[in-house]
């Protein structure tokens, strides 16, 4: 079994239901996110377009975080999920330095690394990840990549425009995007000016290692 995720970006409407359900399901503290939705505006009026991009851990087959973790706190489960053992973590933040997708954070309450686990605790009892259940447009498609009859496998077979983030890094992500674009998936393809926008204040956090 090799569990994977696919997001059909043409279906995503940026409602944040996935992000909110993830926070509620996993008790993710304030200022930390396992799953977030980024809005990117492109173009100049009247030719404008808005991209919504849900971003979470890619559960890479060749995961840099797993490789660099000095104590195996980040480890593979037999179903391909890259899981975290909070009690093992020493908080060195090497995983945050290694992950090219910015998917890992240091939980300010436990002081340990944390990230999306594809809701491993729910999968274990036969449930879908919280974000999949909450999505009103079924933009999140989750399943076994090894099973040719699974929805995700069929979706991948039927669509030619499947993309992953930063394929050049050879991390082999098991998180795919359909109907995506470089603007949506490459962080350097859009500007990220700090300051207030229509919706929120876009900013960077201060040095998180200061403790």
């Amino acid at each position, binding site marked *: 079994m090799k569990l994977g995720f696919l997001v059909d970006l043409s279906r995503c409407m940026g409602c944040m239901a996935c992000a909110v359900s993830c926070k509620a399901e996993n008790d993710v503290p304030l200022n930390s996110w396992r799953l*977030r939705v*980024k809005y990117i505006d492109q173009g100049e009026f009247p030719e404008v377009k808005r991209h919504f991009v849900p971003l979470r851990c890619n559960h890479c087959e060749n995961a840099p975080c797993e490789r660099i973790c000095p104590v195996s706190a980040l480890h593979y489960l037999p179903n391909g999920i890259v899981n975290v053992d909070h009690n093992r973590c020493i908080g*060195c933040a090497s995983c945050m*330095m290694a992950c090219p997708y*910015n998917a890992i954070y240091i939980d300010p309450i436990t002081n340990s690394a944390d990230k999306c686990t594809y809701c491993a605790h729910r999968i274990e009892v036969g449930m879908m990840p919280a974000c999949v259940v909450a999505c009103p447009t079924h933009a999140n498609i989750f399943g076994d990549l090894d099973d040719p009859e699974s929805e995700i496998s069929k979706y991948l077979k039927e669509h030619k425009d499947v993309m992953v983030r930063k394929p050049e890094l050879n991390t082999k992500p098991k998180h795919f995007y359909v109907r995506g674009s470089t603007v949506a998936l490459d962080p350097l393809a859009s500007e990220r000016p700090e300051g207030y926008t229509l919706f929120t*204040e876009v900013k960077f956090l201060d040095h998180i*290692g200061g403790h």
Partner: protein
Amino acid sequence: MLGAEVTFDVALPKVVWGWLVSTNMWAKSIATGSFLLGLYFIKKYPDNDNFFRKWIPILGLIFIGITLLVTVLDLHHMFRFWKIFLFAHFTSAVTLGAWVVSGFVVILLISFWSWASGNKKLFDRFMIPGAVLAFFSTIYTAGIMGQSTAREIWIFPAEMIQMLLSAAIAGSAAYLIVMFLYNIQNESIKRELGYILLGSAFLSGLMYVGELMFAKMHSEFSYEVAKILAFGELAPFFWIGMILTFVVPMVMVGIANEKKKYEYLPMAGASAIFGLWFIKHAWLLGPQMLPLS
């Protein structure tokens, strides 16, 4: 369609590893550099080996102590540090580094005992394993940087050479300062330390200039980092580091060794050691300035 701009996003972490990690690399360069150069001078000048037999353990233990202190302080769970030995994951350069540095500390303690007890043969027996451990203690950080897949400008082979050159710069600079402070007069050793400082500063500086010139060839990420270092918010750190670590020492050593004005050598050493922290800090922070997602 024209440009694109992020209009809604959560606050992203910027600097994950900060000044504690820069200080780790800086102090480790002094500890390992003084050890490796010390061995070289003990072998080359056996009649003047007492100075190096004394200062190898003193410099080594002080600066490896600083390295270990800042390493542990930087952990979010500093009291779980022992797990790195009990649950060691050997694909990680962090783990390998912890083991190698621990071995290096043992060698330094032996060298200290050898000097304190006057038993030279004791340290002589551990010189080869000590050199191996000092070498790997120097380069393991390059392994960590190489494994930091997200930070594309850090490439293991280049970082490894930079770490070795940093050790040569820091080691020679430290000895030049100690020789000045304790008024050790040995012209040939001073000159040679000066040339080691000059040569390693030249090569290391050249590599940084090379990165600035050619970073755009490896990836867009590297190009953006090079721009931040040269012209962005890290430019003051980067250029202070470049001038103090490379330009000033090369000029001062050149004058000192050519004109026999050896009073310039400790100034060159101080400038190099001070500047090395700045260049390490800029190089560490540079790739953390860009959004990864």
